[in-house]
């Protein structure tokens, strides 16, 4: 079966990634088996826009060292090995800084006395859901407040995007750093959402760079079209990046979003535009 993974990214926060991802998924769901995955685990929003039932919740944890101080001889080899300075030896004790640990397990491997064992640190949960009308599967991650490491949870969300589906739509977090890479790595296509302002333009160039470095097929969606200037359009033309969809700047659309109502639910004529956008992506593949 043909299984297509489309990620929706965009350097700038609030440029409309979630709007595009949710409306695309809803528009395709009447014809296909669709799963929408929210990889913005720091601030997940997709579940606020789709009425859903929770099927199961999985707790996600990462490795954390547990020190057996009876066996520990304070040799300091683990502290020397740790690239992140998460373990520090001071005089007669070891200090462990959890927020610096990347969970590589190196300390456990190098300890000559087997004084470090595998511990687990919970970083968040992955929730697997289905929309109330059973038309769409939804998977989203929620990072624990205070937890710095989002990427392992994003990877867990992506691992849950399995089963019998035709199209997976991924809503990626803002920015261009490692959580974005974890969200869009190995996808079939990335939709880069931007807005036609100098800020949107600057961040678009950054995320285009990311997509190119990852060797991904990508296209642009211009949200809030008509709002600012034309630089985004000139850039896309010059770089030969296809613009597959434009969503006009419209106070009505903003108000719908503010109430948590997807565009295609309030204005069904939009469904066709999102389906067309999907078809253009298919043609590019």
């Amino acid at each position, binding site marked *: 079966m043909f299984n297509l993974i489309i990620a929706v990214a965009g350097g700038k926060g609030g440029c409309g990634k979630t709007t595009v991802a949710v409306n695309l998924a809803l528009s395709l769901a009447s014809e296909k088996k669709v799963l929408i995955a929210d990889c913005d685990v*720091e601030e997940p*929003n997709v579940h606020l826009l789709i009425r859903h039932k929770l099927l199961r919740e999985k707790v996600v944890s990462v490795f954390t060292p547990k020190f057996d101080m009876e066996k520990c001889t304070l040799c300091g080899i683990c502290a020397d090995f740790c690239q992140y300075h998460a373990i520090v030896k001071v005089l007669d004790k070891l200090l462990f800084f959890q927020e610096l640990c990347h969970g590589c397990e*190196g300390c456990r*491997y190098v300890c000559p006395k087997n004084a470090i064992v595998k511990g687990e640190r919970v970083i968040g949960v992955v929730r697997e859901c289905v929309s109330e009308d059973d038309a769409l599967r939804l998977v989203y991650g929620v990072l624990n407040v205070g937890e710095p490491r989002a990427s392992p949870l994003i990877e867990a969300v992506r691992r849950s995007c399995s089963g019998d589906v035709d199209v997976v739509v991924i809503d990626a977090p803002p920015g261009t*750093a490692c959580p974005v890479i974890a969200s869009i790595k190995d996808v079939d296509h990335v939709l880069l959402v931007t807005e036609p302002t100098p800020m949107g333009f600057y961040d678009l160039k*950054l*995320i285009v760079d990311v997509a190119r470095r990852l060797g991904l097929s990508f296209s642009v969606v211009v949200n809030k079209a008509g709002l600012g200037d034309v630089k985004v359009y000139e850039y896309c033309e010059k770089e030969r990046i296809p613009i597959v969809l434009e969503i006009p700047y419209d106070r009505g659309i*903003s108000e719908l979003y503010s109430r948590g109502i997807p565009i295609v639910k309030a204005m069904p004529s939009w469904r066709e535009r999102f389906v067309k956008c999907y078809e253009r992506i298919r043609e590019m593949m």
Partner: protein
Amino acid sequence: MVKELVVISGKGGTGKTSIAASIISIASNSIKLVAADCDVDASTLHVLLNPRIKHEEKFSGSKVAEINRSECIRCRCCQAVCEFNAIEDFRVDVFSCEGCGVCRLFCPVNAISLKDRESGFLFISETKYGPMCHARLLPGEANSGKLVSLVKQRAKMVAEEEKRDLIVVDGPPGIGCPVISSIAGANLLLAVAEPTLSGLHDLMRAIGLARFFKMTKVFVAINMWDINAEVSAKIVEACRNEGVEVLAKIPFDRRVIEAVVNRAPAVEYDPKSAFSVEVKHLWDSLASTLALTS
């Protein structure tokens, strides 16, 4: 002591940068400040403040593993132990590698070395409002938290050298590692919210983060409050329940977007606009609170 005001939002696109730039513009009339952009992977404060770069330094946040292919015996030991799934077919995926060195530890023929990776650049610039510290994380890099800490460290250094009173930090969206680094050591946090269901949800997680790190001086400004007065009222109520004061309700104002297009803080582009009037009030409240903070 130099004081620090950090602007965050939880959700992206709520107007953090527009409000931070306007605060910087207003505040620079009465006090000496340093501006800092801690949104290091998708920074935009420079779009509005137009800095002239005076100093640039390279930033290396971590190591990256490198396999010497002529020495590699293709045993796949490294691949088996890599927690980050960064090795496939005897190649290191530099986007996934976190430079921990476990692969090197297990390589039986010492074919793996750790190299410094170039993660980004840090800039110290001059603006008409005062010095500005900002950075650019290379696309796809990890270590954004470390780069944020470095930006803040440099901002503090500059502020102390030039005897400046306040650092205004434009923070990143989210609640993860770069945000945690941004709020560390702040005297006052201003969370900019938008009146949408997502905005409310994300704001509460951002306030939760501030609470987690035991920050007491947290205030909220609702931007574009009149887009949905009902959700704005919910935000006010949710903040009251959390014991957080809403300092400003800023109306939707197209002049703000025009200001962005003209690359100027909105309070300068049109000092009389509804946005400008409200942000001036907001700064007055923040300034008096900051004077009380030690």
